[in-house]
């Protein structure tokens, strides 16, 4: 990912013909290359063949549902996923975020909003010219956009990576969820703080020695999160 000089390619997995067609039309007009699939199985097959930069995934799919598709992708792949959920019922959103989605939009979605989210997610993978930082056994190479723990490469999604970068840029300083939403997700305001929480949990699962008692990414009660340099 991150080949921004070319037009980003998207994979849209949506079972409803009308929505698929309309979104394809809208996204194409926004300047994306869009491949579409009508079911999760087809989507997974297309994913292997085409290697898109991002997936827009409907939750309610016949056969294997969006959450399951999301989980299967995450097993092998860290490419960004935006969920398209028909309800913003909390269970849906939380399950979606747990299964590894980077962001979500609620139907009926405006093409412009979806486009903005897509661009924000894609920007997270962009390289920045910067140094590297190490926190104990964790080494963040900002120029190579890689994170290693005990010398081993960690597989982070662009969102997780961006979250870790934003936190590591201000070690010891607490960042509120709304701040993180602006910095990482580029939500203007009113972001869903559960996005941050879900992403922090996934990140902890990867970078912490014991994810249930984090020593690196700490929760600051009533504020948000903070990256602590090891003592």
């Amino acid at each position, binding site marked *: 990912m991150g080949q921004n000089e070319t037009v980003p390619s998207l994979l849209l997995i949506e079972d*409803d013909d*009308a*929505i698929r*067609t*309309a*979104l394809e*039309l*809208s996204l194409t*007009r926004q300047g994306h290359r869009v491949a579409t699939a009508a079911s999760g199985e087809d989507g997974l097959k297309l994913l292997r063949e085409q290697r898109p930069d991002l997936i827009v995934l409907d939750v309610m799919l016949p056969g294997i549902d969006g959450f399951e598709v999301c989980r299967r992708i995450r097993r092998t792949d860290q490419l960004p996923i935006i969920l398209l959920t*028909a*309800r913003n*019922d*909390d*269970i849906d959103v*939380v*399950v979606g975020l*747990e299964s590894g989605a980077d962001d979500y939009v609620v*139907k*009926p*979605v*405006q*093409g*412009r909003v979806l486009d903005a989210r897509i661009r924000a997610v894609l920007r997270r993978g962009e390289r920045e010219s910067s140094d590297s930082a190490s926190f104990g056994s964790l080494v963040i190479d900002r120029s190579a956009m890689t994170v290693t723990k005990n010398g081993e490469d960690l597989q982070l999604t662009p969102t997780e990576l961006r979250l870790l970068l934003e936190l590591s840029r201000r070690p010891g300083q*607490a960042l*509120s*969820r*709304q701040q993180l939403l602006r910095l990482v997700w580029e939500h*203007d*305001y*009113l972001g*869903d*703080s*559960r996005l941050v*929480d*879900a992403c*922090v*949990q996934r990140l*902890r*699962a990867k970078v912490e020695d014991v*994810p*249930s*008692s*984090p020593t690196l990414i*700490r*929760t*600051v*009660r*009533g*504020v*948000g999160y903070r990256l602590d340099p090891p003592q």
Partner: protein
Amino acid sequence: MTQKQQDSRERREREEHREHHDGARGWSAARGGVWSRLRFTSLRLRLVVVFGLVALTAAVSASGIAYWLNREAVLTRAQDAVLGDFEQEMQNRAGALPERPTQEELQYTADQMANSSQRFSVLLIAEDPQGRTVYGGSGGLSGFSLQDVPVSLREAVNERQKITSTNKYAYHLYWQRIVDGDTPYLVAGTRTIGGGPTGYLLKSLEPEAKDLNSLAWSLGIATGLALIGSALLAQALATTVLKPVQRLGTAARRLGEGKLDTRLQVSGTDELADLSRTFNKAAEALEKRVADMAARDEASRRFVADMSHELRTPLTAITAVTEVLEEELEFEGGGIDPMIEPAVRLVVSETRRLNDLVENLMEVTRFDAGTARLVLDDVDIADQITACIDARAWLDAVELDAERGIHARIDPRRLDVILANLIGNALKHGGSPVRVSVREENAAEDVHGSGSDRAGGAGAVTDDAAGGGTEPGTGAEDGGGGTVIIEVRDQGPGIPEDVLPHVFDRFYKASASRPRSEGSGLGLSIALENAHAHGGEITAANVPGGGAVFTLRLPRDVSALTEEDAEGDARERGGRPRRENAGGDAR
């Protein structure tokens, strides 16, 4: 009167009202408790009294009759024996005296008569040969004398009666019972037929009286025992009656509290069992009815939910395409035919309206279904309001009177919905400028208002207990107690009095002739539901100077409200490891 004074006065009134209300409720509850206990004891008391009265009447009349009959029997027997003896002695001894006996003769006879088996005193009166009245009494002069004989008896004895076929004798034996001191006596007297002394007898009835006394005592004791027995019986009966009544009362109360599955155990065939059966039937019918109504309600809600859900799918497609059309419109010199441009504009704007309506419908059905949940975050209220106004390009039309630094732990999205609806409504009906002011109230008392019953007891807020529990609370969470009050005031004509109670009703339109508004008719209702979800409240009022004011009160920390939700959530989803990692952040 300034706005502030007005407010504080209103608040005071509200508080007073609440206090008064609580006080009244407390008083009536206490009174109810005492009253019911009194009533119960009074039923018990009534039973005891009635039983006692019945027992008393029965015992007293039975003992009375028994005593009376016994007394008569005892006395008559004793008396008949004495009188028989006396008569015999009078005939045998006094009749043997000469017509005019001497004092000595009389005295001697009297002594002899008195020595008979019955041991009575005798007084004989006759005229001696000299014509003087002589007395002969047993026991000497100090004993029985004529003074002891009642005058009426003397007269009766001395009365000479006509001799008829039914009355063979001129003189009869008369007797009377007298009481001298405490001792009952039998006094009797008669004249010897055919001349001779008049004889009187005095017999003490003390032994008989003693017998009767002891009889009376035992009857009295029996009556007392009967009374005690009846009281105990009444108690037992009262208990057997009152227990079921109490059970019935408890069951009725439970039923009233909404536990519609309350049933009574029916035992026996008496009226109370009948009543229990009736209660059970009534409860069953009620439960069924409520279930039916709930099912119907549920069905209609599901219909609305399903319908709005179904509307979503085509709307999503239409919305996406409409934007394409919109861009065409905005594109200068675009390819849209000027003839059909109004049509395209209409489609675009109405699609947006339809979108909003469906969005609001979904929101309403979520509240109705109880699936609306709070996603809490710590926010600066002033920042939130600014962002809300800014996002909708209302900065010029809204005057904000709020200082930064008022933090609250609330759901920012829902606060935005509330603010957008209140401010949007004020702009639409009142016109600009709309004044939005924020202040806080650090009341120590429970300010959760209607939310307190939803929270079901504020448990300890275990926010981040697992995740970041090791860290000290560095965050400046000054939430804790207290209320944030946001007022949205417009400059319009205010709300008509008859509309005021309905402003939060769904689809309520002030008048049928009012032009179609841009709103969905759900905005204020949704704002109110969102406030309720926070345990807050919105009130609408008119300001004396003109214009309407909507007051939103939100508790500063509603974490306690979501505790239950979070727990329910955890159960629902089987407690994934995520929760351990997350430590329940924000949820």
